[in-house]
């Protein structure tokens, strides 16, 4: 319905990447992966950051639909609301690739993601196994209401179902934030001095927990994170973090751009691309750590 950018054709396709937030190294990696691939393919990538707000993202998507972009890669702030937010893009007939988080029932060219529920399950099992299936643990939740929080929570519950002797003594949010986790875990260790494990919904919070635990981290209290960030891997190598569920954000970004450039060219693309989620612990850390 709108003027597609013919001016952009010379340097290849013009594509918008709508990211949920760039305040988190995970998404910075995702963007870097996407940017590198875009440069390699001659795609003109414009990145917009919703700062974790669905409505801001909806605004950015509406703008993308009219600003001459030929396709939209979306890392949704929230699965549920992405559908409505994407409506103008659908109306403009632009191909859509969803990355990291699903976008409800919107008709899209492709979905590239790692499975948060499965990852949550893996994380819970890794922690439970290291505790020989018994003991008190603390769960650190992400931003209340965010889909990653809900899905990983679901995964945790599934994973712990097989370990009746693991007791969750406290579930508290630290909003995916390292500094907040530091205070929350410090406080929780006061009320639960005998806790033996911390199950965190991302690496940032796991690192905050480690900071709070001090010398106890990795020894008296095991910590498991999620994401596989650089700092997370380093902590695994140091032995303070038992395990992290490594997503491969660079790969997510890279694949999404590849798929998009095909879709723009009118080629058929695979509708569902799974990027592997791995449990990274002391055994396989060597394969992941950069230094």
């Amino acid at each position, binding site marked *: 319905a709108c003027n597609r950018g013919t001016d952009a054709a010379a340097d290849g396709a013009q594509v918008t990447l709508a990211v949920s937030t*760039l305040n988190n190294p995970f998404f910075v990696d995702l963007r870097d992966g996407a940017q590198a691939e875009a440069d390699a393919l001659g795609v003109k990538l414009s990145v917009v950051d919703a700062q974790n*707000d669905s409505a801001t993202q909806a605004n950015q998507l509406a703008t993308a639909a009219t600003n001459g972009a030929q396709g939209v890669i979306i890392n949704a702030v929230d699965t549920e*609301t992405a559908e409505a937010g994407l409506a103008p893009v659908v109306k403009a007939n632009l191909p859509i690739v969803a990355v990291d988080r699903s976008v409800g029932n919107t008709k899209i060219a492709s979905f590239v993601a790692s499975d948060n529920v499965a990852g949550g399950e893996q994380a819970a099992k890794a922690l439970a196994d290291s505790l020989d299936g018994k003991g008190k643990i603390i769960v650190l939740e992400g931003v209340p*209401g965010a889909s990653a929080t809900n899905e990983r929570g679901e995964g945790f519950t599934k994973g712990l179902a097989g370990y009746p002797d693991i007791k969750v003594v406290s579930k508290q949010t630290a909003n995916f934030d390292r500094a907040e986790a530091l205070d929350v875990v410090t406080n929780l260790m006061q009320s639960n001095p005998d806790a033996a494990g911390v199950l965190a919904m991302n690496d940032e919070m796991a690192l905050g927990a480690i900071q709070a635990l001090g010398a106890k981290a990795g020894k008296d209290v095991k910590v498991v994170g999620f994401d596989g960030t650089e700092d997370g891997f380093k902590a695994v190598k140091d032995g303070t973090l038992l395990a992290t569920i490594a997503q491969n954000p660079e790969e997510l970004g890279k694949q999404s751009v590849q798929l998009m450039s095909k879709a723009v060219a009118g080629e058929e693309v695979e509708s569902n691309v799974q990027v592997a989620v791995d449990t990274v612990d002391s055994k396989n850390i060597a394969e992941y750590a950069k230094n």
Partner: protein
Amino acid sequence: MSSTAIAPKKGFDVKAFLANNGALVGLVVLCLALFIATPRFLTGPNLLNIGIQVSTIAVMAYGMTFVIVAAGIDLSVGSVAALSAMASSYWITTAGLPDALSIPVGLAVGAACGWVTGAMSAYGKLPTFISSLAMLTVVRGLTLVISDGRPISTGASVSWLGGDLGVVPVPIIILVVSGLIAAFVLNRTVIGKNAFAVGGNTEAARLSGIPVKRVLVTVFVISGVFAALSGMILAGRLDSAQPTLASGYELDAIAAVVIGGASLSGGVGRISGTLIGALVLAVIRNGLNLLSVSAFWQQVVIGAVIAIAVGFDVLRRKNVRH
């Protein structure tokens, strides 16, 4: 000696025009710059986008204008928007009650929140910064409690708020209509004039027989209702009420009001100014997206443009006061 000894000059007075339209000049300059920078800015669809995008903050800021004119501040609007949207969706989707009532229910929730904030300040004597900060937290907590942290789908009528009426997006219609109503109430009714008096000099207002406490409660109820409307528009656009909806929007709403020329010390403010303030914010964001400015630098630029836009407004004041 005549009581009106000093006759004002007639004819078009540039200074006077600037005096009343400082932020407007900022907005026009901003639009011109964007028009030169990218041809995509001044297209029909993009202008419609801006209209839709500005609606949530502007509607919220209309209500905030009343509070600020009365020398208060309402930090709870983002949370109230979320709770109202959540309640109106819960009403139909979870509780299965009639959809026709879901918008009234949302508005009533907003009014009730505003009433509590206002009453804490009027009768409990808390500074409005504190009463509304407390409500910001409490109301967000309640939103999480009733939604259990999960989004709830909106009913048909709330979704309609985010849809189109013929070719015109409903949010834009609400933006205009509720703006006219707000301006009317603020300038033509006793409620509005009382807000100005209370904000301008509370003691003088009280000694003139104006019911200061009731005025304070009223402006917060108005703010709550506008916040609720704004929250439902937002939920309607997303077809879903989110527990994190509109969080942090309070600063944008306040900024819109202040960019529009209101004073946080009360007694001054206009709905048209507030709309311009909200437009300044929406146009900057839209323009930076159009120009593909990197996300990190966007924040730097947004901050700078806010300062500059208000700077224009300051220029006007220099021309007028001494």
